[in-house]
């Protein structure tokens, strides 16, 4: 079920009413309702793949129970290995099987031993990269004794499949989300209203910004061979805002929806395009995934401790794995590697934590240094996004060489019609609002809270009207494919 669909607009109030009016007195019943609602939400897309979530949940629940009873280190490791193999096995099969089969065959062909790649017609289950990481984090944390293994199977299953964040995150940790299923949730008026506001802003980001930019980005990337440099640069710009609006919009809707049910999810985006360097960008972009890799991969590998070689190795590993997580294509790996290259100088010069607080703290505008840092970082990410969006490496390279040509200084020639102008104007307005709200959880969190109700309502109505009438053609959330 898509957040930006009428189906969800019907589904959400029904679950909300049942949750607070029918099941509110019994915690177990409330968790059961959430579980059923979550399976229904997922099954709306394809009920057959529900079995994967159920199986994954079973494995990790019993791995947790096993770890609770087991003191023997070898047996504990074996249990953890079971969880890792099952979860990554599913992920590997559904997401990476064809990639490895094809590249394996290609490698043999290059070595003069041509073999036939036996690729399969595999459908990627929606959200598999998200829920496998979430449930895996539980097993790892139990193994590391960071959390007590749960005895409440219902709470655990509801935690793994919690519908607001099931298919595209934020990837929650058991330490944060699971305990919320143990205790009685109270309805808090302000929290629920805040949740609705965040949902509204998420829908705006997705339908108005991402979907409008998507139309332009698709047009430019699909016809990139015949376009001049300035058009291609604009295409990358549109894609940068498409992916940000799409993914952070989804996160906002997920967080807002959770708040309606009394849950608090972790923040997933913190105005990443206002970052002053790449290190700061990665602290603000897809936070739940970055911190997942940091905690479960980077730190176990040694992190930034050790010699220069270790730092370089670990940085490349984490960025390349992060790229590969996004999809089975070399373009994602190059995207990850490019970000590692951007990040390394900061790490080696120990300047990766120089920009910790918000930009232009206490000021309306950034100073020259901040502005320069912000612009450079944005342009660097823009170039990396080209690979993220490209069909293949050749497409990405030719796209970049098209940008860095003399035609960069020509007027865009992709047919700059009303739609493109509208997308640009909307994006500029969006950046302006995001800038004003950059110190908050989300841009409009505090906007208009002190205004009189009619004026505040007028602002919300305006946003709804813009969503309804200036939104782009409906597109699926990009991160569903991951």
């Amino acid at each position, binding site marked *: 079920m898509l957040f930006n669909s009428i189906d969800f607009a019907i589904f959400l109030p029904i679950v909300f009413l049942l949750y607070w*009016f029918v099941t509110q007195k019994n915690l177990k019943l409330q968790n059961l309702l959430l579980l059923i609602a979550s399976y229904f939400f997922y099954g709306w897309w394809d009920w057959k793949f529900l079995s994967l979530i159920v199986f994954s949940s079973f494995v990790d629940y019993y791995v947790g129970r096993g770890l609770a009873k087991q003191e023997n280190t070898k047996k504990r490791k074996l249990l953890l290995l079971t969880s890792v193999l099952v979860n990554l096995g599913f992920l590997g099969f559904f997401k990476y099987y064809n990639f490895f089969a094809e590249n394996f065959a290609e490698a043999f062909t290059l070595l003069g031993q041509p073999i036939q790649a036996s690729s399969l017609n595999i459908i990627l289950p929606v959200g598999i990269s998200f829920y496998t990481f979430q449930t895996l984090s539980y097993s790892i944390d139990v193994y590391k004794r960071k959390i007590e293994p749960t005895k409440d199977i219902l709470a655990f299953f509801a935690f793994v499949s919690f519908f607001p964040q099931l298919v595209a995150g934020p990837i929650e940790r058991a330490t944060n989300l699971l305990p919320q299923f143990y205790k009685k949730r109270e*309805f808090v*008026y302000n929290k*629920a209203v805040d949740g609705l506001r965040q949902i509204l802003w998420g829908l705006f980001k997705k339908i108005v910004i991402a979907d409008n930019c998507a139309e332009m980005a698709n047009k430019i990337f699909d016809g990139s061979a015949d376009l001049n440099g300035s058009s291609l640069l604009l295409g990358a710009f549109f894609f940068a805002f498409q992916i940000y609006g799409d993914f952070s919009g989804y996160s906002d809707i997920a967080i807002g929806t959770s708040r309606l049910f009394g849950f608090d999810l972790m923040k997933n985006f913190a105005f990443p395009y206002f970052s002053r360097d790449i290190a700061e960008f990665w602290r603000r972009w897809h936070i739940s995934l970055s911190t997942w890799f940091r905690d479960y991969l980077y730190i176990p590998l040694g992190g930034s401790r050790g010699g220069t070689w270790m730092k370089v190795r670990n940085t490349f590993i984490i960025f390349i794995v992060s790229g590969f997580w996004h999809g089975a294509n070399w373009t994602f790996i190059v995207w990850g590697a490019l970000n590692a290259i951007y990040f390394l100088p900061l790490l080696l010069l120990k300047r990766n934590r120089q920009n910790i607080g918000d930009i232009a703290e206490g000021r309306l505008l950034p100073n020259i240094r901040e502005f320069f840092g912000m612009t450079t970082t944005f342009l660097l990410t823009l170039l990396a996004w080209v690979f993220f969006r490209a069909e293949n490496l050749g497409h990405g390279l030719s796209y970049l060489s098209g940008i860095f040509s003399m035609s960069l200084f020509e007027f865009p020639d992709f047919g700059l019609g009303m739609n493109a102008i509208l997308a640009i104007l909307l994006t500029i307005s969006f950046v302006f609002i995001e800038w004003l709200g950059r110190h908050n959880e989300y841009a409009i969190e505090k906007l208009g809270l002190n205004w009189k109700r009619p004026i505040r*309502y007028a602002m*919300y109505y305006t946003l709804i009207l813009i969503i*309804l009438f200036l*939104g782009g053609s*409906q597109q699926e959330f990009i991160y569903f494919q991951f």
Partner: protein
Amino acid sequence: MSIANFIKRSLKFLGLFLAFAILSLVLIGSTFEFLPHTKYYGQDYEKAFNKKDLGLLAIGNSKLLASLDNTTLQKELGLEPVNLGSIFSNLSVTRLTFESYLNNCEVMPKMVLMEVSWFTFNPVRTQFNEIGGDLFLNDYKLWPEALNYYPEIIDPLRKSFMRQVYSKVMPIGDIDYSSEFKDMSRFEKTYDFKLSEFEEVFPDHIAGVDPELLAEFERIVNLCKENNIQLVLYTAPEVSEYRSLQTDIEDIKTIFRNIPDVPYLDYSEGGEFFKKDYELWMKDSHHLNENVRYSEILAKDIKAKLDL
């Protein structure tokens, strides 16, 4: 504050919004007019829904839109025609167009001319397009059917609504479907057939028969029967390269050939009325550019077929 308060306020907020939305729809609906557009002939729609005694209704998708010339048809058939084709439109839109006309007309048309082809029942090549939104804004009698077309109706409805609002502020220029092709030669081949583009839409070279679209087609046939209107089906010319890739064409043509009392005139390769020369009259693999000479031929063939 309690949850009851939350719900009360949310309902109030939504109620106000809904009241505003309904009021806007009524307002736009009451001042609605079909506007010029590059995807159809806006003036023909406007004429169809204002002049309520037309003799010939031409309905279909872009193949129909491209193949007919009203002046020639009127001269040859003696019926006042309108071309109600639109780019990409599927049979749902075609049926709604026809039904909406019947809802509003004073005199039933004598003839309905409908272009049908290999992809008529394909739900990818044909879609619920923008004119569908226009039809709903223009004719409130269609609203009970709106939910049947959810969610694909949302986008066309939104776009139609926006165009109506824009047009009240800024006049829309003098454009129509033909304006994009006016500089193309009408009697020589100037296009290249791109297999990759074809395969993007038809990867297996099969158009298939979507059951819902087939049901819409049957409704059109029945509407004609019930109202004593002569339905004429035809397939406009297509180039050989395009035609040769249509794996399941015979299955689809069988549907058109076997409707009692409905003549089917086939101008594509293998059809009764095919001529090789038509390839020079095209603007691409399946859209005619020379619509005047073709309309003349089509009208004469119809007359012969129906003994008019």
